């Protein structure tokens, strides 16, 4: 079956341990994920969900692999919009590799569906989230307060 995939990479001047903690700490996550946070025990087989600031669950699934601070794989199914939920579960892999004074973070998101509305939807969000995460870890502040500044000004 055809697949839809994206691979996003950012280099963050931090340590793998700090980055792992940033990816798994709900309170820290809210700072760079526009108020969203994920809830999980972050161990293999434990449930995982991504929660909007208002408490609605946007995505849910489970932890497939957890090898701190190197590799995290999440089975990830959208919950909120029916047409995205209908595409089934995707697989999100986060890999952390130390390179000199930085850590290379690769986020690969794949779904067994081509073309995929889910992949189109999340591929727009990830660069903003990753860019905020990089700014927050490197300088202590985030670049974008609002994911859609143009919409907020209307």
């Amino acid at each position, binding site marked *: 079956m055809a697949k839809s*995939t*994206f*691979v*996003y*990479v*950012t*280099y963050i001047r931090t340590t793998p341990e700090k980055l792992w903690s940033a990816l798994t700490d709900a309170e820290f996550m809210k700072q760079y994920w526009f108020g969203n946070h994920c809830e999980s025990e972050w161990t293999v087989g434990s449930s995982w969900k991504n929660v909007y600031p208002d408490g609605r669950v946007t995505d849910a699934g489970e932890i497939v692999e957890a090898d701190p601070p190197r590799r995290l794989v999440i089975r990830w199914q959208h919950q909120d919009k029916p047409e995205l939920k209908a595409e089934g579960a995707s697989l999100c892999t986060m890999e952390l590799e130390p390179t000199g004074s930085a850590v290379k973070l*690769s986020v*690969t998101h794949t779904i067994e569906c081509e073309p995929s509305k889910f992949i189109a939807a999340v591929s727009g969000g*990830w*660069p*903003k989230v*990753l*860019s905020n995460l*990089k*700014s927050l870890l490197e*300088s202590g502040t985030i*670049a*974008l307060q609002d994911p859609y*500044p*143009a919409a907020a*000004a*209307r």
Partner: protein
Amino acid sequence: MPERPDADALFKALADPSRRKLLDLLHAHDGRTLNDLCEHLDMTRQGVTQHLDLLEAANLVTTQRRGREKLHFLNPVPLQEIYERWIAKFEKPRLKALADLKRKLEQDHG
């Protein structure tokens, strides 16, 4: 927001029409092989490889091995950082001006 340490490599990578075409090709369809990309460019295979290497060095393209194939993916994260560093800050006052204008006009007609 401070300047990215690798901003020069990024802007240099974007300052070439063939490399921008490669990014457009990956935007239209991600995860392509070198052969696939060569078909769309009037250039030697070696030339395309050199352009892809430069894009990869600037982190605009990432690659994954799948069996014997090497697949190329567009990585838009550095472009998002350019947007935030160079565009969002200029856009904000203008968006505020538009929002103020809308509020004023709506009040006048309210």
